C-alpha cells in the first residue's frame, strides 16, 4: 500500500476517542507524510456539523441509524462499512456494592439506576435490553451521553447504568461490568465512511483501510471492541 500524504480529518463518535487516537498515531507511523486530526463528539452532533459544512474527510458513527442520516442527506462518498461492534453492559461501582447480577436486579426501586437518554444510541440499546428481558426499570436520570453515565457511577452517585463494554474497560479500577446474557443483549455496530466533501479522499480511504487491517483491528480489540 503506497503511503498517503496530507491532512486527514476524522469526525468520530466520542466512544472511539481512545482507540482512534492510538490508531491515528499508528497510521501516521505507516504514512509519515500524512497528518490525522480528530473531532470527537456525539455521533448525532457530528452529523449536524458535517451537514453544516464542517471540514471532515471521514465520519465514524456509534450507530447505524445516525450514519443513515449522513447517507440520506447524500453527504457520503463511499458506502458505510461496519468496522467494529460493541456490547452493552451493566456498569456498577468497584466491588459491586449493591450485588447486582442481572438486568432484572435493576428493577429494584431502591437503586439509583441511570441510563442514556432515548435520543442517544446507548439509551435506545438500554430500552431494547429491558424490553428483551421483560423488565420495567425506572431510571433516576436520562443522561445525554454514555460518558456521563460512567462518571456518575464511578463517582458513586449512581448505583448502576447501562453502557458499552468498552466504557467499563476504560473506567479501569473505578468500575466493574456485569455482562448481559447474549439472548437479551444488543450489539452496537460502528460504521465508517468517506464524506462527500472530503478534501483528501485518498487519505480518507487509506485511513478506513487501515482501520480494517489486522493492525487497526488489534488496536480496537485492545479497547474492548469486537470485530464486525
Amino acid at each position, binding site marked *: 500500500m503506497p503511503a498517503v500524504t496530507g491532512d486527514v480529518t476524522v469526525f468520530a463518535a466520542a466512544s472511539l476517542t481512545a482507540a482512534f487516537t492510538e490508531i491515528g498515531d499508528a497510521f501516521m507511523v505507516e504514512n509519515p507524510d500524512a497528518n490525522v486530526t480528530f473531532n470527537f463528539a*456525539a455521533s*448525532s*452532533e457530528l452529523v*449536524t456539523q458535517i451537514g453544516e459544512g464542517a471540514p471532515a474527510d471521514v465520519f465514524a458513527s456509534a450507530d447505524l441509524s445516525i450514519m443513515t442520516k449522513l447517507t440520506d442527506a447524500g453527504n457520503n462518498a463511499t458506502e458505510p462499512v461496519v468496522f467494529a461492534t460493541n456490547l452493552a453492559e451493566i456498569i456498577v461501582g468497584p466491588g459491586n456494592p449493591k450485588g447486582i447480577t442481572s438486568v432484572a436486579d435493576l428493577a429494584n426501586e431502591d437503586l*439509583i439506576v*441511570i441510563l442514556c*437518554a432515548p*435520543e*442517544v444510541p446507548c439509551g435506545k440499546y438500554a430500552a431494547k435490553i429491558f424490553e428483551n428481558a421483560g423488565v420495567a426499570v425506572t*431510571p*433516576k*436520570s*436520562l*443522561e*445525554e451521553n454514555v460518558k*456521563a453515565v460512567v*462518571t*456518575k457511577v464511578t*463517582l*458513586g*452517585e*449512581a448505583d448502576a447504568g447501562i453502557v458499552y463494554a468498552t466504557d467499563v474497560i476504560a473506567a479501569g479500577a473505578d468500575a466493574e461490568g456485569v455482562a448481559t446474557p447474549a439472548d437479551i443483549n444488543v450489539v452496537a455496530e460502528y460504521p465508517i465512511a468517506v464524506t462527500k466533501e472530503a478534501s483528501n479522499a485518498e487519505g480518507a480511504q487509506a485511513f478506513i483501510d487501515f482501520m480494517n487491517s489486522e493492525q487497526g483491528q488489534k488496536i480496537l480489540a485492545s479497547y474492548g471492541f469486537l470485530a464486525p
Partner: protein
Amino acid sequence: MSRRRRRGRGRGRRVSLPAPVLALAIVAVVFFALPLIGLLWRAPWSNAWHYLSGDDALTALRLSMVCSLWATGLSVVFGVPLAWLLARVEFPGRGVVRALCTLSMVLPPVVGGVALFFALGRRGIVGQYLDRWFDLTLPFTTTAVVIAQTFVAMPFLVITVESSLRQFDLRLEDASRTLGASRWYTFRRVTMPAIRPALAAGAVLAWARALGEFGATITFAGNFPGTTQTMPLAVYLSLETNPEEAIVLALLLIAISFAVLVGLRDRWFGRIDRPMSTVAA
C-alpha cells in the same frame, strides 16, 4: 410617583458619538443579533405550534420557571446579606472570600456539577451525612436543580448589589442612626430603598442565568422529564434527534427571557445610573 413615570429620560435627546465608537457599537449589536436571526431564519414556523404544545415542552418549561424562581429567591435571601458583608465589613481575607463566592461564574459548568457532587452528593463532604442521618439524597432531585442554579446564579446578584452598596453614601445611614433609628430600621428604610434598583437588576441577571443553566444541572441533577429536565436540557437532547424542535424550544426560552429583560429594564435598570441619594430621597 411622578419621577417614576419619567422613565426613559434621555431618550430622544440628541447625542453625537464619535464615528469609530458608533461603528464598534454597531458591530457589537450585529454580533449579538446575528445568531438570533439565524435561529429565526432556520425555525420551522409551520410546525412551531405542534412542538410547543407537546407535553414534554410544557413540563420542561414549567419546571424551568419554578426552579429558576426558587433559585432567584434563594439568591436574594442569601446574596444580599453576603453582598452587605463584602461591601461594609472590613475583615482579613475579604478579597479571597469575594473571589470564592464568585468563582462559580467562571467555573466550567460541568466541573461545577461535579464539585457539587463532592460537596452534597451521596459521597460528598456534607452529602454523606445527609444520606446517612436523614436518608436524604440530593442528586437527581428537583432540589438539586435549584441548588445547581443558585450556585451559578447568585454571584451575579452579589456583585451587582455589592457595587451598589459601595457607591451608597454612608452619611445617609449615619443621619438615620443619629435621628434615633435602629440598625434594622435603617437597613430597611434607608439602605434597602437605595439599593433596590441594583437588587432588581441583580435578581433579573441571576434569574436569567438560572433559567439558562445547563452544565451544572445536567451533571448534579441529571436529566429526567418532570423532575430535573429543564428547558435547556430538553433543548439539548432534542438537538440529538429533532433539531427543528430544539430550535422552537430555544426560541420560546429566548422569547420569555427577552420579554422579562426588556420589560424590567425600563422599570428598573434605567434608574441605576442615578446618584443613590436621589433614589433614596
